[in-house]
């Protein structure tokens, strides 16, 4: 078979513009009459607020300061509409947007940010998802902090334990991670000649952005256009709205092009993070090292907003067994609100964290059974025809054995070392 693409080196279509510095990212856009915007963000984790913009408005060069009062529909979010365009009564995390200052240049905007008075009435916060799950914990939204509970059950748990010769039980924790894409958020919005509100931004989802911008401004989608510029890295961190609605609102209200650029610091507190997980695992195997049972409770800290928490924690639950056949499985995974920075999509989407737990469990089981860590894996990995805990039958190629064999060869793994 003659293939045009597969197996050949293909030059990137955008390679030339990127090596010459001509590729445009939102911060590189300049148009006539452009004005600037800067966001005022909360420096408290959980507080009722009152905002006074009077002083700031008087500064020469300030055109308008937007708050929740200026937003037709103040809610948005990729799954649940739990984000506010600007916080109305309460801030739920450090970095929550409170106001958007628009002025003739960045300098006056910065000055105005200092002059906005925010009266914070701090309330008790919750920063550990296990505490947040308790009934008497402070609530971030509504009357429970549990956003999502995924349940997976297969086989017979008691039978799994009675068939096990060794059972190991441990708790694993992973931490929050930032995508740290190299291009901080930036954008430019304007109303074009055909009266279409246009937002130029580096985004992962121009179509979702369009929906959310239109909804927040109470416009039809036909009245809104999103132009995706070059995107300076994303890794999941540009799936949620950042400055799109702020810019659109300002450009639409003022009928002027408005540009904003986040500093690295603002970028860090403005976008999502990888969910930190607490993973309680109980895994059992028989004398020969064949897995019999796995029980896992996975608690994901989604911070102040849900973002993709449901999808992420579902994925953690689905992948909780790792690539191993286990006849008896019980998984409960939860996404929980806290007052930490919100978590959302990041490469792997919840599947990245669970190997920290399931692979450690395998090593510890191997040690207890006096088997080397490679053999215990080879005995239990998915093969063609295996059935996963969710009932998926592996029909196609499942070359995990070949992969492990290659790794063993290349790292010079010695079974005697493995036995430790």
């Amino acid at each position, binding site marked *: 078979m003659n293939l045009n693409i597969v197996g050949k*080196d293909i*030059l*990137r279509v*955008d*390679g*030339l*513009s*990127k*090596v*010459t*510095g*001509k*590729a*445009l*990212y939102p*911060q*590189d856009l*300049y148009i006539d009459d452009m004005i600037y915007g800067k966001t005022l963000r909360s420096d408290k984790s959980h507080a009722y607020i009152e905002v006074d913009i009077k002083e700031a408005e008087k500064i020469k060069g300030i055109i308008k300061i937007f708050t929740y009062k200026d937003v037709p529909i103040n809610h948005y979010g990729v799954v649940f509409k739990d984000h506010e365009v600007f916080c109305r009564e309460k801030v739920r995390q450090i970095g929550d947007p409170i106001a958007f200052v628009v002025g003739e240049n960045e300098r006056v905007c910065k000055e105005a940010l200092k002059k906005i008075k925010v009266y914070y009435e701090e309330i008790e916060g919750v920063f550990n998802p296990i505490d947040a799950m308790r009934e008497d914990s402070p609530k971030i939204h509504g009357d429970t902090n549990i956003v999502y509970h995924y349940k997976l059950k297969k086989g017979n748990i008691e039978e799994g334990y009675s068939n096990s010769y060794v059972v190991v039980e441990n708790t694993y924790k992973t931490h929050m991670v930032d*995508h*740290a*894409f*190299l*291009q*901080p958020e930036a954008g430019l919005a304007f109303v074009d000649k055909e009266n279409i509100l246009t937002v130029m931004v580096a985004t992962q989802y121009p179509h979702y952005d369009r929906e959310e911008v239109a909804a927040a401004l109470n416009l039809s989608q036909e009245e809104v256009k999103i132009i995706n510029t*070059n*995107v*300076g*890295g*994303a*890794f999941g961190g540009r799936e949620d709205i950042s400055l799109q609605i702020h810019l659109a609102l300002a450009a639409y209200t003022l009928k002027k092009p408005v540009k904003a650029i986040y*500093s*690295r610091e603002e970028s860090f507190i403005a976008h999502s993070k990888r969910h930190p997980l607490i993973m309680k695992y109980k895994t059992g195997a028989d004398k020969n090292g064949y897995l019999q049972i796995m029980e896992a409770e996975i608690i994901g800290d989604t911070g102040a907003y849900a973002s993709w928490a449901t999808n992420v924690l579902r994925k953690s639950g689905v992948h909780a067994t790792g690539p191993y056949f286990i006849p008896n499985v019980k998984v409960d995974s939860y996404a929980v609100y806290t007052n930490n920075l919100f978590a959302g999509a990041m490469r792997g989407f919840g599947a990245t964290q669970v190997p920290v737990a399931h692979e450690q469990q395998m090593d510890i089981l191997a040690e207890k059974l006096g088997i080397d860590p490679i053999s215990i894996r080879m005995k239990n990995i998915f093969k063609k025809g295996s059935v996963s805990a969710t009932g998926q039958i592996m029909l196609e190629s499942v070359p995990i054995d070949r992969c492990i064999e290659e790794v063993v060869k290349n790292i010079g793994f010695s079974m005697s070392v493995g036995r430790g």
Partner: protein
Amino acid sequence: MKEIKLKVNGIDYILNIDEDIRLIDLLRDKLRLTGTKEGCGEGECGACTVIMDGVSVNSCLVMAFQADGSNILTIEGLEEEGKLHPIQKAFIEEGAIQCGYCTPGMIMSVKALLDKQPYPSREEIRKGISGNLCRCTGYNKIVDATEMAIKYIKEEGV
């Protein structure tokens, strides 16, 4: 306002600048040379790297007035008569680019390295780009591209 004179990409400029702007602001906002990127504003990421009087610098850590009298080369000044510099060519061919935001700074660091040390080892290339962060491509392709560029430069006698 302060008047400064400097050369950027071979062109002489006399500019009136605000005292508190940085070299990166001068390049981007005044001269609209937006190939030089700002990633962190504190010298950690290297996206703003330019060559100043023969050495690589973070243009976010140089005040514009300090550049008075200096000679600056940015990514826009690498092409000669519409012909790509061998480093640019090699970056495209090796696929050493993804999002592209680190690319201009990375290329300027490679240029500064090769100007000083035409035949670096892989380890020396890694050291040469150690002030530049890349979050997508990873560094192997960039090191490969640098090696290819060394070959091109030798062949072309640039």
